[in-house]
């Protein structure tokens, strides 16, 4: 799927599953999708460490032009759901699909 319009049509569930996989990849598969779900999608509770967070921010920036500053916007990286909301908002502003 390419283009912002197509991306916007994607359901939150699709995007959520994509973010879960991105977290798993960002953590070098140390935190699995199952681990994330067991922690209700909360990244800290799932054991995402600082390197995992940095990798995740890198991929969010590359993939969606979504620059998250954890100092300014700590809530955006709190959970899979909050990342979905942030990415969704970024895409609505014209971010990359």
């Amino acid at each position, binding site marked *: 799927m390419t283009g912002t319009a197509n991306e916007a049509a994607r359901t939150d569930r699709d995007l959520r599953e994509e973010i879960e996989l991105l977290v798993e990849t960002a*953590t*070098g598969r140390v935190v*699995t999708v*199952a681990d994330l779900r067991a922690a209700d999608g909360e990244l800290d*509770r799932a*054991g995402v460490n*600082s390197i995992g967070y*940095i990798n995740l921010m*890198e991929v969010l920036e590359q993939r969606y032009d979504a620059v998250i500053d954890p100092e300014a916007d700590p809530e955006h990286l709190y959970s899979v759901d909050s990342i979905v909301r942030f990415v969704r908002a970024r895409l609505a502003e014209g971010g990359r699909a």
Partner: protein
Amino acid sequence: MADGQRLGAAFLAACARHGERRAVVAGSEELTYTRFADLVRDRADTLDALLGPDLANVGVHAANSIDHLVSYYALLVAGRLPFLIDATFGAAELDGIRTSCGVPAFLFGGKEPFPLGGDVRAVPDSALSLAVLPAPAGAPEPRASTATCRFTSGTTGAPKCLEFTADAVIAAADTWVAGTGLGPGDRVLCLAGFTNGLAFNTSLLPVFTVGAELHLYQGPPTSGGISRAVSRAAATRLVAFPLAYRLLAAAPRADVDAFATVTRAVSAAAVLDPEVRRGFESLYGVRIADYYGIAETGPCTYEREPDRSEGLGTALPGVSVRSVELPTGETEVRVRTASMAAGYLNAPGALAERLDADGYYRTGDLGHLVDGRLFVTGRLGGPINLAGRKIDPAEIERTLLALDGVTDAAVFADTDANGETVLHAALAGSGRIGRTEVVDACRARLAPFKVPGRVTFLPAIPRSTVGKARMTELRRLVQDVRAADDHPQELEEHA
């Protein structure tokens, strides 16, 4: 004059020398040397009034900022003893520092409540706040010559506190300047926390001594963020850690032009993957110079030859490095520097025990020298190096053993699918507990970087007759378990 004040005076003298040159930049905020010194003097007066005559030991628990720098030098000028504390430390580490080092006052980033509570006061003209807690009883007295305290890993929840004299801090700065050619025309972009030796020894006093510019990095260190910061600063030097170079080397839309002003990139804190080095250097045309330093000793080696891509460089001026063969046949790296810590405040005698008969510090790193060039090949054991932070597995194991149902625990360094070091906890016991509960329990008691990412449950931890974990067998067992089931299990399955 107290030794700390002597260090503060050295800083103010540098400011006087460099006057209207730009000293430090963070985002849209910047200071000339003159303004920097004025703010430090004003802050020293403010802190004097807030701290009164009795509060001499002051922790600084905050992320990098100009405010942080001003406060650190102000504490020195005011004759207080600053304790530079990792901003990620939580309540357990902070309370350990408070009680074992006798630190009753903490300057902290004012957005969040201070983890230990206390009497919190605003610091005028600052985003930092001051928390004052009851003075701990029975804490050791710092040496009269101690000017700055920093921390390294501990085993009991209290990080070990390194005491540095003014001479040691100045020697580290002078060594770095002389050994790396840092000059007044340099603009240094630093990604490391001030509490880390990488930043403290390469990017604070050395920069100000020569009248260069220090640019503070703000935001997550993504490849795009770093490139934008390098471009804004027109940086001549980038001081970063291997992860940053990995991201830059792999960036799909690399802004190569942003690095046109960079003459050297400094890497330290962990081993740099040769592939990452090659990728970064070929993409950006900037050489990465390795730096080897130890929390206890300060800067040790630096790679000065542009064509060298192996090893960690040669000894910096005033530093002696040697490798010593151990009874096991392995060779350990030992160093002697003028920037060595005087001791651990909260572990008396422990640093002296790490020195050999000739006064060389036993680093615990395995390695050797070839024509004076240092090659580090592994660790003897002891603390795990996780992206530059030293972690003692024993501290985490103690936390794990306190969990209901856990009868044995072993924590060790593992590698994730991205090649990064990750903490792996192997647990044995009879209770019903899962990975989430283990992570939750560790998060409640330890700093985030000490929380194990991998958790594997075993019927028993293989140990030698003297109780030491048999690591080869342990690694094989956890590999077998994880190969059989990628999902977390519960101890009950093995009970």
